């Protein structure tokens, strides 16, 4: 029987199952294949908070959302078109995210009495039978049974056999979306190069899934999603934490400095440490410290020693670093502090995303201790943002905050990666000799108000630095009142002066004056961008500007803001950028705040745009 083929512009698939069902791998494989076919895409995994929550329970559901298309994609998307549910719990947790009329692919074995009970569903309310899914298209496949049948006699144990059932689903989806199997087969071959029997089983099941689609009548439709009109070039897929790690290495290479990374594990920042630890051949010194205070302290020591030094953590760990950040402000040494934000306060929602540490970055220290703040917009953008944070730290001899979040850290997207040669140069020169007519003034400043970097080992530049207020230029201890005010203002001017050396703020889209500007920062980028496109298509032409620099603001930001009747600031917090903007520019900007541990959907922002513009 011939099946109908439809062309789609974009698809959002949510792969959901128990933590042990391999949904992260399935999603990643589908993603990589989509990327190789030239789709634009964006993904976001959704882990359970527990390491391994009890199998089959609601807490144990692991999900992976993929948004791919023949158009440009800026976020993992809002409601899904397709939901793969390997068990009852996965269906229950994710159903509300599925579009009405959307497609559900279920593994029927995951809806047996035991699984229903674990998902807290009364047995007589089995969603597969009780009509509650009538508004959706449901494809029921007994994946477990089919997998076992296919591998009978393979010599593998039942546990190993069952573990390959995710390949059946992958194969089936490859069939449905007209995708080749080669890429995944290659992947399996690498992964199981030493376990021939398991490799064979996986490939067999992958093909079985494909064949099942081809031969059965479970679905009468197949879909084609054409390549997206992406700028020509070579692409790779990248996750945010990985991008940050690579950004650090790139900045070290380009500045000619060794990289020191002092860190203490914490979700969702740990992967930066893991990634860096793998690159010792770049001379990376990654140091797992005893706590966050030691982590930043070691980085401070390494920075004094002439390394590009960085540390990363998430909210609670950043809180612990406050005192040492103040020290780095006084020292005026380069240091990059990455905060991969998660849901707060306190331990909060450690595996969820949030943007509620902005004011902590700006104000979370004693005294007037200004630190520039740079924000990453998306997984791939984390590379550039990190690189830029390093550049500022080195050129201005200052600690710099880089804000990322759980959504950026674990999300992935295609990245038209640069060539090493294309990266902005970072010029670092250690001072080699006395800088003031036979005298050495460690706090003498250049036109950027930046001081020289004189590292141990340099003859004649022996000097002492400390956290007590320093005399201008000499850096000696000074309790002199006038000097203190002078230095506080000087450190402030230095940071504010960075505005003279960063690009002016640009609009991301929309008219350059008018009714509404959406001002964003960080990971809301994709949702805002998509929302603007959708609103525009409905006749509401809002402008969008997205901040890379949250402190100092770009010089022309005020001008831009004053060009609009209204300014909307969507944030995953209670209005933190909002507060900074209102107090600085005296405009009654409006906040759109979501504090659910989840990113905005484009729809939420679009609705607000329309509400404000109509």
């Amino acid at each position: 029987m011939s099946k109908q083929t439809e062309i789609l512009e974009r698809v959002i698939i949510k792969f959901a199952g128990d933590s042990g069902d391999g949904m992260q791998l399935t999603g990643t494989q589908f993603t990589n294949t989509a990327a190789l076919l030239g789709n634009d895409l964006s993904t976001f995994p959704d882990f359970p908070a527990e390491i391994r929550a009890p199998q089959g329970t609601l807490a144990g559901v692991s999900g992976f959302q993929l948004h791919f298309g023949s158009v440009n994609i800026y976020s993992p998307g809002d409601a899904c078109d397709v939901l793969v549910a390997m068990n009852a719990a996965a269906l229950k947790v994710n159903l509300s995210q599925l579009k009405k009329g959307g497609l559900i692919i279920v593994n029927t074995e995951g809806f047996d009495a035991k699984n229903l009970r674990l998902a807290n569903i009364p047995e007589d309310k089995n969603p597969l039978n009780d009509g509650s899914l009538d508004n959706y298209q449901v494809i029921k496949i007994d994946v477990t049974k089919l997998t076992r049948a296919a591998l009978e006699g393979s010599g593998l144990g039942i546990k190993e056999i069952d573990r390959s059932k995710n390949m059946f689903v992958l194969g089936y989806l490859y069939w449905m979306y007209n995708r080749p199997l080669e890429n995944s087969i290659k992947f399996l071959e690498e992964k199981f190069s030493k376990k021939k029997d398991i490799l064979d089983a996986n490939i067999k099941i992958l093909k079985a899934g494909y064949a099942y689609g081809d031969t059965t009548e479970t679905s009468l439709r197949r879909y084609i999603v054409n390549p997206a009109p992406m700028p020509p070039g070579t692409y790779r897929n990248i996750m945010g934490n990985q991008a940050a790690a690579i950004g650090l290495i790139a900045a070290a290479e380009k500045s000619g400095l060794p990289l020191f990374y002092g860190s203490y594990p914490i979700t969702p920042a740990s992967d930066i440490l893991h990634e860096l630890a793998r690159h010792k051949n770049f001379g990376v010194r990654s140091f797992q410290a005893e706590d966050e205070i030691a982590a930043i302290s070691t980085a401070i020591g390494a920075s004094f020693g002439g390394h590009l030094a960085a540390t990363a953590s998430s909210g609670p760990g950043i809180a612990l670093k406050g005192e040492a950040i103040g020290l780095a402000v006084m020292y005026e040494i380069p240091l990059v502090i990455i905060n991969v934000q998660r849901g707060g306060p306190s331990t909060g929602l450690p595996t969820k995303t949030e943007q509620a540490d902005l004011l902590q970055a700006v104000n979370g220290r004693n005294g007037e201790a200004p630190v520039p703040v740079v924000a990453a917009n998306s997984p791939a953008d984390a590379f550039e943002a990190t690189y830029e944070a390093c550049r500022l730290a080195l050129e201005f001899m200052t600690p710099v905050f880089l804000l990322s979040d759980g959504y950026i850290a674990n999300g992935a997207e295609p990245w038209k990666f640069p060539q090493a040669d294309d990266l902005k140069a970072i010029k670092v020169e250690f001072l080699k000799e006395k800088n003031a007519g036979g005298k050495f003034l460690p706090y003498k400043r250049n036109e950027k108000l930046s001081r020289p970097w004189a590292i141990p080992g340099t003859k004649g530049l022996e000097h002492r630095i400390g956290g007590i207020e320093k005399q201008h230029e000499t850096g000696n201890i000074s309790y002199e009142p006038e000097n203190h005010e002078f230095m506080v203002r000087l450190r402030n001017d230095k940071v504010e002066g960075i505005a003279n050396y960063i690009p002016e703020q640009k609009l991301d889209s929309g008219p350059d004056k008018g009714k509404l500007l959406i001002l964003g920062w960080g990971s809301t980028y994709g949702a805002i961008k998509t929302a603007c496109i959708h609103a525009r298509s409905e006749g509401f032409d809002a402008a969008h500007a997205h901040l890379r620099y949250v402190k100092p603001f770009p010089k022309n930001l005020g001008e831009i803001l004053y060009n609009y009747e209204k300014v909307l600031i969507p944030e995953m917090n209670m209005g933190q950028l909002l507060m900074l903007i209102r107090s600085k520019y005296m405009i009654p900007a409006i906040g759109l705040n979501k504090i659910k541990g989840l990113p905005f959907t484009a729809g939420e922002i679009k609705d607000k745009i329309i509400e404000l513009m109509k």
Partner: protein
Amino acid sequence: MTENTALQNSEQKLTAKDLVTDQEVRWCPGCGDYSILKQVQTVIPELGIPRENLVFVSGIGCSSRFPYYMETYGMHSIHGRATAIASGLKAARPELSVWLVTGDGDALSIGGNHFIHMLRRNFNVNILLFNNQIYGLTKGQYSPTSEEGKITKSTPMGSVDHPFNPIALAMGADGTFIARSMDRDPVHLKDMLRRCHQHKGTSFLEIYQNCNVFNDGAFEIFTEKKTKKQETLFVENGKPLVFGANNEKGVKLDGFTPVIVDLTDSSNSVNDLWVHDERDRVKAGILGRFFDNPAHENHFPRPFGVFYVEDRFCYEDALNEQINSVLSSKGKGDLNKLLRGREVWEIA
């Protein structure tokens, strides 16, 4: 470049004077810190380290002002974190000679954790702990080394904290060089400073230091002529434990129990005494527990010298070995390759 090759690069000999900065020394007149500063400035030139390769790192406290007075590189940092800062510096720049100056509060109260972690990691850093059994800079609260019952501003009825025994703590944290000296014995102190430098690994030197303003005379019994010989036990490797005004007393071991014997009594012989062995962890442990209150009857003398030494790899060496081994096996990382990652695709 290792510390040793750095040594040879030294061009002309330093003198103590070369290590004096233009900053006025601001400890209270009579403070024990002066003497320690002087001995350090005297010993350093002997060691042949070029001045530019020396870094003094400190936390906060009276003692932590030290780096300002040393014409070397220096970091006066924040309370308790000097150990962590020095760890990072040493990991980054193993060829530097890093000296850490800290107080009993700085190292053992707020900084206790970094302290024990530095000891176990065995960074090749010299820790000089100026123990005055008090918080000097904050004007006289008790510290984790103050004796039980200590009356201070924060304990007007006497402290109810059982104090740390710093030697025992360092042993428990697997320190590889553990020693004690005092501000008032320049010769011994200089000797210990040299030993610290010689040891590869974290050298922990506790220095009894008199705070004549807030805890005057805390160590008088050990430092003053009248009582010093009776109350102290200067240990040397391979030598029997002898003390007393005329070396008339000794310590021997009765099983695991140390016993003070009278050498003037002919039934006792120097040959039966406990012979100090720096590399014997168990005995060093017993020696470290000679920690009684000197007011108690039958108390043991307080030992000074090197309690324990052990050879163990240093963190920074192992780290650099890893880096070198990947470099030699994989070659220097190629940034373009890293940027490119494992899997790419082309859009034409």
